Structure formats: C-alpha cells, structure tokens
C-alpha cells in the first residue's frame, strides 16, 4: 500500500489529489501515518511506530490505522500496488 503518484502533501496536513481535484486536511496523527506511507513503510512497521508514538495497544492501533487507510483508499489517495 502506498500513496498514489503526484499526491501533494504539505507539512501542515493539506493534501491535494491532482487526479480528482480533491483536497483534504488531516490532523497530526494523519500526517504521521501518511508520512510513513510516503516513506514506503510496511503496515506492520506503521502499526509498531503508531503504538510507540501514541502509546496505543495493538487492537486500537490496528483498528484506527485500518479505518484511516480505508478512508484514504475511498478518496483514491492510496493504491495497493
């Protein structure tokens, strides 16, 4: 799973998808996950980092990450390739 080509992400969490013209704002947690995806990290690594950064248990980290990823997928911001 990775961020689609050409998606522009600013440091303050503003995301622009030039394919659809859609723009979004994400919070600090969102930026954290998107940055990891951008760096090419695996889902397992992201969960581990996510747990460490926000002191989460595995269940909560997985659930929140999956929710967020499905939202990103719904808005065509990530691809499974």
């Amino acid at each position: 799973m990775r961020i689609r080509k050409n998606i522009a992400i600013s440091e303050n969490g503003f995301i622009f998808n030039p394919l659809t013209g859609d723009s979004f704002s994400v919070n600090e947690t969102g930026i954290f996950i998107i940055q990891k995806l951008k760096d090419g990290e695996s889902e397992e690594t992201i969960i581990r980092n996510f747990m460490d950064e926000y002191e989460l248990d595995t269940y909560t980290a997985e659930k929140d990450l999956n929710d967020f990823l499905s939202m990103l997928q719904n808005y065509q911001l990530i691809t499974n390739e």
Partner: protein
Amino acid sequence: MNKRKITVAVTGLNNIDSPGPGIPVIRGLKESETIDVRIVGLSYETLEPGIYMHNLVDKVYQLPLPTAGSTVLKERLKYIVSQEKIDVLIPNFDAELHNFIKIQEDLKSELNIATFLPSQAIFDERQKSELGKFGDKYGVKVPKSHMINQVLEIRKLEETMSYPLVIKGRYYDAYIALSYEQASSYFYKVVAKWGYPVIVQEFVTGTEVNVTAIGDGKGNCIGAVAMRKLYITDKGKAWSGISLEDDELMKISRKIIENSQWRGGCELEFIKTKKDEYYLLEMNPRFPAWVYLANGCGQNHPEALVKMALGEEVQPFADYQSGKMFIRYSYDQIVDISEFQQISTMGER
C-alpha cells in the same frame, strides 16, 4: 522585447453569471509576451458587461443577431473594416459559429480578416445530435442519445432507455428528468428557448471533468488543460474550478482533437465514472468561459489561436500546472448613461 501590434475582434462580451468566453479570451491575449493586442469587441446586446470594460476592450461594435444570417453579418463586418483594420476575429458563441464558418473564406479574401475555425463538416460532426456517430468514429465513449421533435417520442424511448434521462437543448441547457411528466415539461421548456430538435440522453453518473483544448486543423493538439468544477451556479456554470493532472483524460482528449483534425479552440465535457471510464457528453466548438485558467496553468490558448490564424507555426504545449484554481467574482461597473446611449443608438462606442 518589441511586441507586434495587431487588432483582434472578439465576441462573447457577456461576462455575466453564465459568462461568454470573450473577456477570458481577451485577458489571455492581453497577457501575450509577443503580441500587443488592440481589442475590438463585437456585441449583440447593449448590456454585455464587456462593452464597458475600457481596460480590456478598446472599441466596440454591435453585430446583427445570428438569426439575421451570414449576408447581414458580412455587411456589418464590411462597415467595421472600413473604420479600422481587423487582423483576426475570434467568435465565441455556439449560435454564431455557423455564420462565421460559412463566410470564413470571404472574410479572408475580401476583408483580410483571419479566423481559425473548423470546416462546416467537422463542426457538424460534433453536434450534440450527432454525438453517437462522433463517438463511434473517433473511438470515444458517449452516452446513448436520441434527437426528438415530438414529446410523444419520449414514450417510445422509454422502451429502450430508463430514467433518469437528460433533456437537452441543441445549443444549451440540460435538465435531468426522473419521470415522463418531468421529461415532457423539460421538453417544452427547451423547445421554447432553443427550438427543435430536443436531445434525450442517457444519464451517466460520475464526476464531471472538462478540458479546454486547441487544435491546429492538421491533426495536432496544440494544447489541452483539464479542470474539475468546484462550485457551480444554479445554471450549472463553474464559479470555481481546479486544474487536474489526469493522463488518461489527456490521452482521450488529444485523440479526439487529433483524429477529428479539429481547427481552433474547443471544450470537451466528460463524465468520469466510478470505474474510471470517460464518457464524452459534449464537444463545444469554441473556448469555454474558463479558458483563462489554461493561461494560469501555463498554456495561453487564445494567443496560440491568434498566431495560427496569422499563419504561424505554433509548437504544442508540453505540459501545464495542476492545482491551479479559478474563482470567479461579480463586479459592479459604474457606467454613465451617455455611454449606454452611444452603443444603443449608434451601435458602437
């Protein structure tokens, strides 16, 4: 750099809530780095806001309405060129294009006015009523559509098409009908405004995406910029939009311009479905009112058109910036009655 001085006549000065492309075209021309353009505005109504925009339009002449025909139009243009030389003329209304295409050769040979228009045959090919054939010929998906002249024909179409249906006028207007009652009411509404035939089209769901493009008439697409509307007026006109980066859409658009050997500016209106399929809804035979966005993205289409009209070779634009937005605004101009009187009584200002 010394700019070449030329005079360009432009129609479509109706910069209203459903604007004509004239003023955006003029803004593009005024921003050219190589040509210094004097603008002669050509208007149909005395309240077209562009008539009174002195910073953009240097001189204005009224034209006879398109229904008066091409002979009357030519006579009027003869008078205008007796007053001042016109190098290039850019018509911007669908309804007037037929007349201009008809006299384009005479304009060049008799009045020395250059235009850059498609031939009548290519112009006719992309008529809304011929869209099905156009799609087949150039390998682009189009929604199923039928032309009708009687309201009862809707009943017959119900056998092969299901609601919602789109009821469209031959030049403008489109309404989504959910039932026969709605469809028949829209049929009469469209007939009253635009006459026959009325187009009944399959409703394709998805996101509307539009492309402003320009072709050289020799099978080359000189420029194309894609846009998605972000905010629309109650008439469905874009009040704000953003340029897109969509390779597939660009590929389809270029194919249409190249294969049809389109000559001049145009607007391609598509629906992108959830399955990422593109359906061509319309090909408008002139620049759209949002053509200035192309300029903002790095492609000055009006300037390219003027150069090609003058016989110059123009290199195709390689790319453009996505993420550029346009946001329209309305603006009250204060005009003295004497100026309105001038255009109303003398037909020029």
